[in-house]
């Protein structure tokens, strides 16, 4: 268990960053078009989450360095972009980080027009999709590893990206709200949250809850299909399927199910009420994220463990 810890951390954090960035973009667009909010109003809500994405990505990239035997040669990994998916992954990773930081800095200092920043955010999201796609291809393109060499790898990566991204954004929104209320309290004021802000957050959380349930459904369809595929493969495929069994596997499924499904349901219920105190919602959103994060983390480390090659 946890043999490829640095790769697990890197891949989970990088995918969560991309997912969160995309979800934040969707929230921006919907809040403006459907919620009728102004760019500044939404920025106030999404900016802290955007900065958190940056922190997550940096942590992930830092973890990836520990995977290397000779980190001093790290710059060489860009030499084979024309052939190696690993080179491409790093290129997209650096592109996503670079564009993301440019975007975050422009948001922070309010540089450039809102439109320019939107275009940059869109470009960043596209490069992020490229990052997740090239990550998937690293594994999916290996003929020697039947557990990875399947359509399941990209689909599973996409699900993880969106699931963790959605729930992280939900938790970040509620964290922002609670943090601001605490600051007010500390300043001796009555804690309050702008009603329209709360409406936007509530609407976002509803969307996130719905998305989580759909993604959960997808995840629970993919897993049996994958196991079925492996059971019909050669000896290496059958052997690799053994990883996906036992108590840890059950725990992983239970955590994701509880987090995304059950709590998604509660978020939906809570968010439908117009509560004055957002604390229960904050707890639910955070716990949901925590459970799914741990579940996906175990899942990814099992993914690495399932590396059984054909041949000898």
């Amino acid at each position, binding site marked *: 268990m946890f043999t490829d810890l640095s790769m697990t951390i890197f891949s989970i954090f990088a995918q969560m960053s991309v997912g969160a960035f995309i979800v934040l973009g969707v929230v921006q667009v919907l809040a403006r078009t459907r919620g009728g909010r102004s760019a500044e109003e939404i920025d106030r809500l999404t900016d802290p989450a955007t900065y958190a994405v940056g922190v997550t990505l940096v942590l992930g990239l830092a973890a990836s360095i520990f995977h290397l035997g*000779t980190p001093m040669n790290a710059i060489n990994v860009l030499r*084979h972009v024309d052939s*190696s998916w690993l080179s491409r992954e790093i290129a997209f990773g650096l592109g996503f980080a670079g564009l993301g930081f440019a975007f975050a800095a422009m948001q922070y200092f309010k540089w450039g027009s809102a439109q320019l920043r939107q275009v940059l955010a869109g470009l960043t999201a596209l490069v992020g999709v490229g990052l997740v796609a090239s990550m998937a291809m690293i594994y999916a393109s290996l*003929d*020697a590893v039947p557990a990875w060499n399947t359509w399941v790898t990209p689909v599973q990566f996409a699900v993880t990206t969106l699931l963790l991204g959605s729930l992280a954004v939900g938790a970040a929104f509620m964290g922002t709200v609670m943090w601001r209320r605490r600051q007010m309290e500390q300043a001796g004021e009555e804690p309050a949250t702008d009603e329209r802000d709360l409406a936007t957050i509530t609407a976002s959380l509803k969307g996130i809850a719905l998305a989580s349930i759909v993604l959960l459904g997808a995840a629970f369809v993919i897993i049996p299909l994958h196991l079925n595929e492996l059971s019909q493969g*050669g000896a290496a495929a059958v052997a690799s399927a053994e990883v996906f069994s036992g108590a840890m596997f059950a725990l992983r499924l239970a955590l994701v199910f509880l987090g995304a499904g059950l709590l998604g349901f509660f978020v939906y219920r809570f968010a439908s009420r117009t509560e004055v105190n957002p604390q229960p919602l904050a707890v639910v959103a955070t716990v949901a994220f925590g459970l799914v994060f741990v579940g996906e983390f175990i899942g990814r480390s099992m993914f690495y463990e399932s590396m059984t090659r*054909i041949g*000898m």
Partner: protein
Amino acid sequence: MAVKLGFYFDQTLCTGCKACQIACKDKHDLPLGVNWRRVAEYGGGTWQITGDTFAPNIFANYMTMACNHCDDAVCADVCPTTAMHQREDGVVAVDDDLCVGCRYCEWACPYSAPQYNAETGRMSKCDLCTDFRGEGLDPACVAACPSRALDWGPIDELREKYGDVAAIAPLPDPSVTQPNLVITPHRSAEPVGAATGAINNPREV
């Protein structure tokens, strides 16, 4: 392109003594756990039923494997640094100045030829004893085999002499990497795709 080099293995002669593996390890001074050449013990069996009598019907054979310096060298294709590269003579080797020790080539190769050396933080592998060949000597494994089961040379010549069989279990289907390898199969050898046996010393290979 210059002549392509490869290995020949006569499975009918191999006794599983592992002299090739040890000669390689000694020649290249490889640390514990790093084995450029490995010998798999492949075996299996069924029950032969005659009337009420069940008799075991078993088989075993050996497969020695280093690197096949493949035409379709996936190890080099996937390497992000170009450290893993194919030379003019087809020999696939690691450039230590470039290798970042990511171990991606290890995942890609179905022959376990790239062997990670934790002491150097880099990948290492068979280079067909480039230095020995330069002195007119045979590679260490070929020279060490007491049964004369191993040979090396231009792959065209090897194929002309020994045929072109390489699809023998527990090896992968040759279509994956186009290995420069020729095998004379043991009488109990199983072709890839119809394998019923298993490697009985998995921790050694």
